[in-house]
């Protein structure tokens, strides 16, 4: 029997990896929920309001993007537009070459993972060093992030200590404090030597042109403290209309992502350093990245562009907890990834259409989403699109014959009677693959087809 790729991945995932993903996501989800409900009278109402703010922004990108561009320019920032991953990467490379730069320090940004910037720059002779601890470990291991907030949720400290030893960062020591100190020592020198600092943006305000960055390690601040050139990669959906929208969004982001009231560092960046300021980048670039987003906006799943990348839907998702991130074959895993990843592929949608099936539609993702994205509805729309485009779906039973039966009462009643064969024949002798799968792990209840209708007919009238 052939099953879905994610299911096969889950079946081969080592138990210790599954356990560490489960423990970590469960703990974060529980802390998140407690914090929100302890501190706010009605967190669900806040999620709805935040969803409204982001929905308004994405539906008005046509006016907000020119507005933010004008603001950024007035603030002394150079603005670039990149329709594709390739053009975004080429723009970064062009900026570096124009400055004669060869060394970049990077803060954590999902969009740089999405456009595969670091490998691109390395291919062109540039150094692009990850400075977020998790991303740094992913980079030295030539691995991929498996969670949008915690890239190394799939690794334990013994694996990390082994990697550090291999990279010459010190003899094997799996004490987390030692690992962190060694990474810090290594990175501090790199910051000082770098030419360019690259960040993403959690939000960008059309009102002021301010870029907002949240981190817990302070690495984005170091990236900007020592370099002369700041490049910010910004997905076009990161724009919000007003500065005051940030109050609610930041309050929900920290709580939803890491169960913090606010992250340790929240930076508001208004442009390159002013003449009166002693240090900071003298040159600043913002590259707005589309890379499929306009097409998502035009689709029936545009609500997914509200996403603020908190990872709460990954943490609560029972499927993500069984699979971990790599099973999704995408930069964006979990429920949000199951919607966003196939959509961002545009015409190559069928390559990842299976992701939308990897859900029991339990709705936990919608319940925790800080911007109230109806993820199960979007998954259903994508399943429908996959069916319309005749994308094969291993293990999913065909529904045509069932629909015929279920719209013909006479045929339905005949099937109810005929099902009795299940009580006499082993399931594996019947030509129904779904039944074989089910019966391999479940005892079937006895078939009682039509018995209720018989009871109704025969009982004394009430």
């Amino acid at each position, binding site marked *: 029997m052939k099953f*879905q790729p994610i299911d*096969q991945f889950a079946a081969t995932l080592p138990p210790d990896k599954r356990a560490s993903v489960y423990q970590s996501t469960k703990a974060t989800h529980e802390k998140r929920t407690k914090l929100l409900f302890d501190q706010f009278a009605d967190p669900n109402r806040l999620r709805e309001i935040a969803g409204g703010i982001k929905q308004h922004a994405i539906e008005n990108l046509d006016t907000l993007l020119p507005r933010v561009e004008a603001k950024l320019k007035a603030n002394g920032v150079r603005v670039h537009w990149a329709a594709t991953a390739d053009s975004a990467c080429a723009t970064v490379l062009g900026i570096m070459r124009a400055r004669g730069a060869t060394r970049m320090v990077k803060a954590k940004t999902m969009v740089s993972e999405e456009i595969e910037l670091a490998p691109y720059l390395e291919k062109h002779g540039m150094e692009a060093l990850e400075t977020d601890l998790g991303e740094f470990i992913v980079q030295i291991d030539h691995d991929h992030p498996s969670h949008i907030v915690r890239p190394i949720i799939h690794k334990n400290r013994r694996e990390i200590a082994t990697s550090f030893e291999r990279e010459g960062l010190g003899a094997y020591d799996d004490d987390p404090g030692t690992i962190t100190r060694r990474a810090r020592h290594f990175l501090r020198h790199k910051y000082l030597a770098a030419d360019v600092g690259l960040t993403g943006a959690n939000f960008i305000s059309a009102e002021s042109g301010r870029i907002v960055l949240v981190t817990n390690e302070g690495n984005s601040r170091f990236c900007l403290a020592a370099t002369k050139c700041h490049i910010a990669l910004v997905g076009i959906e990161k724009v919000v209309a007003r500065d005051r929208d940030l109050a609610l969004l930041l309050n929900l982001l920290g709580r939803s992502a890491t169960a913090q009231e606010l992250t340790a560092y929240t930076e508001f960046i208004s442009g390159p350093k002013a003449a009166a300021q002693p240090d900071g980048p003298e040159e600043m670039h913002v590259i707005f990245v589309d890379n499929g987003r306009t097409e998502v906006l035009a689709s029936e799943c545009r609500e997914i562009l509200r996403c603020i990348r908190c990872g709460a839907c990954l943490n609560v998702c*029972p499927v993500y907890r069984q699979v971990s991130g790599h099973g999704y074959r995408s930069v964006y895993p979990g429920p949000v990834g199951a919607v966003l990843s196939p959509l961002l592929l545009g015409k190559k949608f069928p390559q990842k259409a299976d992701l939308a099936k990897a859900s029991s539609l339990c709705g936990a993702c919608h319940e925790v989403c800080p911007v109230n994205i109806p993820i199960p509805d979007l998954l259903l729309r994508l399943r429908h699109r996959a069916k319309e485009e005749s994308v094969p779906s291993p293990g999913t039973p065909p529904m045509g014959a069932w629909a015929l039966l*279920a719209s013909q009462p006479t045929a339905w009643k005949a099937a109810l009677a005929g099902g009795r064969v299940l009580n006499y024949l082993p399931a594996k002798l019947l030509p129904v693959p779904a039944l074989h799968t089910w019966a391999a792990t479940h005892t079937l209840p006895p078939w009682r087809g039509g018995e209720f209708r018989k009871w109704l007919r025969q009982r004394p009238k009430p």
Partner: protein
Amino acid sequence: MLNAERTPLTGKRVQLMATCLCDAFYDDLAVATVQVLEHLGVEVVFPEAQTCCGQPAFNGGDWAASRKVVRHTVKTFAGDEPVVVPSGSCAAMMFHGALLEFEKEPDLPEVEALGRRTWELADFIVNGLGVKTWPGRFDATVALHRACHTRGTGSSEAAAMLLRSIAGLKMVEFGEGEQCCGFGGTFSVAFPNISTAMGDLKLDHIRAVKPDVLVSGDMSCMMHLGGLAQQEGKPIKTQHLAQVLRDALRGGVASSG
């Protein structure tokens, strides 16, 4: 969250949507539903032509097939009476799922109208009829599995309220109660490894609190969990809420099935 706006109740006559699961496997649950409703003075009508709510094809993405079944259901449940369903997921199919697949169809208003008068059983008893306590007696320790499809509706709280009010019944809460059991319809056969792993985790949590009976408003979750437990050689007793309510009226102990 869910589209669960309801037409206010007027009379005390309802149409019973028994679900395909009861039609095929769980006749006693459908019988119990009738008996519980009749105990409340509700007249129960069973439209003979009923089949299924259309959910399997809807979830599988085959909306054309699903709409065929939903149209049949709309025709079968014509009229103004509330439609009561002893299943949260079938009820949610009528008041939420079907609206998605009909949003561009000319007969959307008819589908919406059926959705507005469709009630999950516990929601109907507590929030529709205003019945908040249940008479009789049920001497057992009960764990309630809160089924996922009625997240955002009053169903799970309604079921818990009724159970807690029954004399002799002791409710126990288990860990991670808000997590899915892993059934998910065709999900369970397309993703069998993930589905059974989710089910086993749920069973671990349930067994840890040692209930006499595991109860739910959705028998499909019970078919999954009960079937898994039995195959593993460690069976657990499962019942639908309607069966517990009916057995309580008889003053007794859990019936079989």
